[in-house]
């Protein structure tokens, strides 16, 4: 985008006002796809918190829930504990790779169809059109004097926008608490949920600002993706492209027919400006690939309609590559290469990380053990000359039932093991009970009579055996002799 497109300022003025963009309504294939995706993504967002998932008594029965007070994240059959945030990291890496792959195949399709900024802006534009009319009408109303009717429309529009924004913020907080309960609490103004109100307030404000007032400015000034995307793309990626090999030179329909009759070359573009009129970011795609273009395909729909009317074939603007425009001009056949080094690598990485995460999830233990050696002091000498090391051992029971774990050590011969607060049973076994879905931290003292024989560090293994199933987890640490 050149500075000329960004709105003109009077010479010497300190700022340039935003050039208002009035995107025109358009119908066509890509518009239909966009409506479909809009309906789909918004329904997922608004309805997902209400999907129930039975996890048994005591556990929340919400399919997707971020439970901050209990530090759990629930996603359908998956329950993530704080120490397992690497799943989240994995998901973020996957998301980035999918974005890269989409970009290698078809440019910024994410921006045009799926980005929340695009989806909500689209919804806001639809609301605006519904109340104030289409582009030309809105431009006229904004330029002319304000009548009472215009004021009424403006108020209606902003109220509708705020309503959507409020609903958006409302849906957001439902992901953090039991949705039906919270809806009831919100609707009946129950006390003690001020945090929910604050978050609804924040999300209402940001939605209203970003989708209502800032629109394409978010894509142009605030979003980092266009900058990154520009560095990641190559000449084989499909982008919304004006086929200048076919469209140029532009001229009126009459001129073009005359030229064609005479056997002279003529372009298909009739310079009607429809492609620019419908563009939500105000781009003239005929100037070439643009950083302001979010690849929504609406200009394709607009131009296709024009081509239909003048009896020329569709897709003067299409998902295509600059390279192919040049090739066709030279009489070479266009090339499409979805299988390229980068797409194959991205796909392979996605599969690998996806498989790794699935495997990890499928084989994950529902018990965990962590061992922390006392650092200060590392070792203690006792009256009889034996050496004692102390450890903080945390048992995690990630199942829905209370369970008992037997703690055993090996590696240090005839070590005496004590757990503070836990009495050994008749057989001298150390058994630690942990409640359902809980952890228990214990202080474990290991005394070694023969330690004097072993200077330095001796490896020691701690094993926790689940009493009923015999499943066990082993952690390694060291016994330190001074």
């Amino acid at each position: 985008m050149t500075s000329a497109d960004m709105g003109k300022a009077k010479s010497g003025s300190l700022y340039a006002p935003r050039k208002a963009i009035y995107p025109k309504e358009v119908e066509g294939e890509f518009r239909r796809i966009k409506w479909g995706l809009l309906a789909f993504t918004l329904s997922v967002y608004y309805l997902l918190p209400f999907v129930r998932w039975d996890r048994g008594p005591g556990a929340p029965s919400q399919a997707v829930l971020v439970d901050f007070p209990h530090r759990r994240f629930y996603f359908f059959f998956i329950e993530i504990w704080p120490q397992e945030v690497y799943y989240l990291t994995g998901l973020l890496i996957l998301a980035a790779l999918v974005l890269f792959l989409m970009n290698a195949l078809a440019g910024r399709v994410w921006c045009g169809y799926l980005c929340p900024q695009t989806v909500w802006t689209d919804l806001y534009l639809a609301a605006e059109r519904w109340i104030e009319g289409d582009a030309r009408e809105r431009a006229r109303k904004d330029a002319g004097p304000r009548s009472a009717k215009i004021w009424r429309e403006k108020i209606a529009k902003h109220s509708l926008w705020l309503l959507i924004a409020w609903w958006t913020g409302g849906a957001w907080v439902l992901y953090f608490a039991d949705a039906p309960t919270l809806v009831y609490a919100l609707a009946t103004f129950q006390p003690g949920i001020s945090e929910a109100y604050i978050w609804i307030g924040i999300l209402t404000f940001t939605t209203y600002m970003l989708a209502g007032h800032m629109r394409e400015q978010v894509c142009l000034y605030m979003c980092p993706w266009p900058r990154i995307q520009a560095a990641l793309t190559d000449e084989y990626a499909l982008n919304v492209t004006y086929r200048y090999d076919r469209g140029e030179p532009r001229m009126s329909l009459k001129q073009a027919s005359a030229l064609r009759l005479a056997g002279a070359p003529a372009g298909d573009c009739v310079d009607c400006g429809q492609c620019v009129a419908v563009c939500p970011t105000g781009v003239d795609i005929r100037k070439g690939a643009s950083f302001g273009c979010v690849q929504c395909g609406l200009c394709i729909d607009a131009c296709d309609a024009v081509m239909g009317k003048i009896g020329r074939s569709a897709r003067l603007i299409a998902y295509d590559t600059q390279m192919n425009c040049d090739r066709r001009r030279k009489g070479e056949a266009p090339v499409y290469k979805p299988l390229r080094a980068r797409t194959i690598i991205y796909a392979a990485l996605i599969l690998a990380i996806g498989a790794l995460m699935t495997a990890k999830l499928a084989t994950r233990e529902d018990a965990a053990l962590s061992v922390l050696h006392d650092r200060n002091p590392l070792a203690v000498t006792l009256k009889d000359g034996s050496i004692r090391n102390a450890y903080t051992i945390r048992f995690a029971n990630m199942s829905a039932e209370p369970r008992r774990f037997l703690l055993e050590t090996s590696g240090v011969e005839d070590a005496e093991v004590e757990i503070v607060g836990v009495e050994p049973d008749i057989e001298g076994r150390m058994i630690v009970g942990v409640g359902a879905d809980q952890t228990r931290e214990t202080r474990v003292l290991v005394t070694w009579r023969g330690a004097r024989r072993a200077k330095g560090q001796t490896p020691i293994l701690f094993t926790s055996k689940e009493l009923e199933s015999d499943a066990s987890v082993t952690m390694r640490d060291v016994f330190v002799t001074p």
Partner: protein
Amino acid sequence: MSTRQAHSDAARIDPHSKTRTTGHEWDGIEELDTPLPRWWVITFYATILWSIGYFLAYPALPTLSGGTQGLIGWHSRASVARDMEQLNEIRGPVLERLANAPLEEIEARPQLLSAVRALGAAAFANNCAGCHGAGAQGAKGYPNLNDDDWLWGGKLADIRRTIEHGVRWDADKETRSETMPAFGRDGMLDAKQISIVADQVRAMAKLPGGKATPQGAKLFDDNCSVCHGVDGKGNHDMGAPNLTDALWLFGSDKETIASRIANGGGGVMPAWKDRLDEPTIKALTIYVHTLGGGE
């Protein structure tokens, strides 16, 4: 090379962008005078206004005897006090359970135990770590609380009493006041006798080079066994250390032992009863007891 000079005032309109130039030019490249976006300028002014408001509202300027107070009366001290209040509110239920539970039962209740240990660890770091070390590992003359050797007893009640009333802390009437006499300084034993007793003690402790003699045994019996016991195994009631184990608070070489005999005395610990509240003392007791040395 262009013939025009940099920083000439020849601002002009750039034919391509239709934007005015600043007139600055370097090697043929001119700088456009592109205006800032309005939202940016507004944001910039808004931050300036905000900073002025902030400056007035909060303590900002230092003066010779303090500083400006700010119009809304905010104070970091007050905010800390509020945080502390909130913390105590959260801790309230635990503190209450702690206050009501007998010391002996706390360790058997996992949740209470972990809360109390956390509380005790913090109190220990604030009050005790200065002498006993951050990990209660002690130092020469300051007992290691992780081991199983106790001068005044390692049962919960003993530990609690030591914390409450201190050791040789004259300001507390109930403090432990027994003290090792200075046998040499006060002329009860001469240097030769002290050396013999030191050898005797080292022999009782099976330290290499220790030397038991009939004279040494007699001297020990006459002078030391009252407190340290006939067999040298010490006495918790008097704070007399066990002389036969592997742990030596001041060191086990002959010179150190002889000097302890000659000069007497012992460590001092403050009484905490008036400085710490009941739940904190309880938490500290449990914490020290669970370090590993508790009896």
